[in-house]
């Protein structure tokens, strides 16, 4: 295994150090930071917006660019969280809890610099772990059969809902089902029968994944800025951030170092879980640090604590890198953003999974090794550029929103050159907007849509192998193990609720206040 890993690393290094790939890492980090910083736009939108550009590129170069955009956008999101208390997406909400108070106390530069160092450390440590864990999991996964894949996809889809917030489990599951329903539109791969096409030629190939991603994220996020009359982008005074304000003392570094190490490990392992992603990584790291902190320090959390800022920033970056493990080794996305990236990989003609480790080591190792470079670029690029980036936040929404809409529409049109797709995007945008207003999450829908076709294929194949019997769900030990894990994850929220009820109903022990 070690020999294979060394060879793979060499392949990755040589692939990453090609000038075009270095340029793409740089461009991805820059574009991701920029898009992620704009209020309302998160990594899913950033990655979806960049996909049309990657269609003209080599798959490795395209994936390197998309990976750069992903962690760049996570980093960019923290900038808007700290400066204007407007997290671009859920993964940077926890950053705003202590980052924004720090900025208001007159330390915006320090907060941004700590966020940059924490992101860099979290990202780099997670990539080292990714390098060891991904090949290990890939080598185990080569023995996987259709039944195991079906079970894994089931696990991925249920895990998304289990990690949804309080009361969000059923809603997330329902959105997964809606996504799966949308994936059945078009021609059935095996029988060639048309399903839900209503006689339309445009729907014969099904719904374009990019179209759905753009409509459900980029368009709806731009429209929700308009609907909520969000003026946050107009309210920033960029002059408050100068180069001198970015200084972090040695004492402060020493203070946050253990937090960074702990949060990196936690973030990575949370990211590896299918469906968990950066949001859970950041909140869990924040929660862990608050619990571990001494009582005096605990009081500072939420009011500008340095540990409270470093923990979620490290956690979300580590989890972003961790979510590449199930994507690259099993072909199962760990988060909404990696679901979009899975769609891009499939569009390139690459099937992610354990075979990719053997068949396309350039893509597999190229993406991993480019992450080192990306993390360094993010630090070098973003620290000096923070004062300038902050000025971009002052672009009025009267100009920004139509430009976002234009790029989203063009992103799809310039790939398909079909004006019917623009109409369809608007239709999906209206439906997605309505669902968002009714408090239904969109990421599970996209995850369901991406996995729908693969899931149906694997279920069909498993049934064929097992003579139309569902026994494949429990006869193979691997499948049974995965299914038990799925069951556990599904029952977890109910068990948690029952435990809370039991704790509330049990009387306090005598003698205790």
């Amino acid at each position: 295994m070690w020999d294979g890993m060394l060879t793979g690393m060499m392949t990755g290094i040589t692939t990453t150090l090609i000038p075009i790939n270095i340029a793409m890492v740089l461009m991805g980090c820059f574009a991701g930071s920029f898009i992620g910083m704009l209020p309302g736009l998160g990594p899913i939108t950033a990655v979806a917006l960049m996909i049309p550009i990657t269609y003209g590129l080599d798959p490795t170069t395209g994936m390197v660019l998309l990976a750069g955009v992903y962690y760049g956008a996570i980093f960019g999101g923290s900038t808007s969280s700290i400066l204007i208390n407007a997290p671009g997406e859920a993964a940077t909400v926890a950053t705003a809890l202590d980052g924004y108070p720090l900025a208001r106390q007159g330390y915006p530069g320090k907060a941004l610099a700590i966020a940059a160092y924490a992101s860099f450390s979290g990202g780099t440590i997670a990539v080292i772990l990714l390098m060891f864990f991904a090949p290990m999991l890939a080598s185990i996964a080569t023995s996987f059969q259709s039944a195991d894949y079906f079970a894994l996809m089931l696990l991925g889809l249920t895990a998304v809902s289990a990690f949804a917030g309080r009361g969000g489990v059923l809603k997330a599951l329902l959105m997964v089902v809606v996504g799966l329903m949308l994936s059945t539109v078009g021609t059935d791969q095996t029988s060639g029968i048309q399903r839900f096409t209503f006689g339309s030629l445009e729907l014969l190939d099904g719904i374009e994944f990019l179209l759905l991603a753009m409509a459900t994220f980029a368009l709806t996020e731009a429209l929700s800025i308009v609907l909520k009359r969000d003026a946050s982008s107009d309210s920033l005074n960029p002059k408050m951030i100068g180069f001198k304000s970015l200084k972090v003392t040695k004492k402060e570094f020493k203070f946050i170092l253990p937090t960074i190490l702990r949060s990196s490990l936690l973030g990575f392992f949370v990211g590896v879980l299918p469906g968990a992603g950066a949001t859970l990584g950041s909140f869990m790291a924040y929660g862990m640090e608050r619990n571990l902190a001494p009582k005096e320090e605990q009081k500072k959390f939420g009011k500008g604590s340095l540990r409270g800022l470093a923990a979620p920033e490290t956690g979300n970056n580590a989890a972003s890198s961790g979510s590449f493990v199930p994507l690259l080794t099993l072909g199962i996305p760990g988060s909404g953003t990696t679901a979009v990236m899975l769609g891009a990989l499939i569009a390139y003609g690459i099937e992610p999974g354990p075979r990719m480790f053997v068949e396309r080591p350039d893509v597999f190792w190229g993406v991993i090794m480019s992450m080192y470079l990306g993390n360094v670029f993010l630090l070098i690029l973003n620290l000096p550029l923070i004062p300038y980036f902050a000025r971009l936040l002052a672009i009025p929404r009267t100009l920004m929103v139509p430009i976002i809409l234009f790029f989203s529409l063009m992103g799809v049109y310039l790939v398909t050159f079909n004006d019917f797709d623009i109409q369809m995007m608007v239709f999906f945008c209206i439906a997605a907007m309505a669902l968002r207003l009714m408090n239904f999450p969109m990421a599970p829908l996209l995850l369901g849509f991406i996995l729908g076709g693969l899931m149906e294929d694997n279920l069909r194949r498993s049934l064929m192998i097992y003579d139309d019997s569902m026994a494949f769900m429990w006869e193979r030990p691997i499948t049974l193990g995965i299914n038990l894990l799925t069951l556990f994850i599904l029952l977890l929220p109910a068990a948690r609720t029952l435990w809370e009820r039991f704790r509330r109903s049990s009387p306090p022990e005598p003698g205790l206040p």
Partner: protein
Amino acid sequence: MTREKTGALVILLFSVAYGLLATKIPLSFLSEQEVFTARTMPYALAVAGIVLSLAIIILPTVDPEGKASLGEATKGMDWSTAILLVVLMLVFGLIMKWLGFILSSILFLLCGFRILGETRIRLMLFSAIPLVLALWCIMSLLLGVYIAPGEIFYQLGVL
């Protein structure tokens, strides 16, 4: 009714319609004998959609954010601007073929800026025109992607 129950009701109707449409998926004589047909997955999904949406409707709402009614949650929203932007996007899709990429895109951006309340004509023009031309140059000249000119140019005899 809370907004999440309203949403569940909408998806329930969608799932029922999806299930009914699934019965209309054509099957060949041979495939009808199989256990797993083109209808199997849609049937399973329709049932799952109905069960889950009914569960949300019947069970009490736990999510504090989902408890507000749709009217309360959407109160004070700028509907007129959002609707105008949606109409603009639809029109953009319709005129694209006729006016071509450059003209329709510039028009889309100018109208979009105006709908959102921008009044500085120069700023609007300096934002829209270079952006569209730059994108066109990148796609056509740099990446070699052929973007067809609008029908109008052929009809007017310009091309």
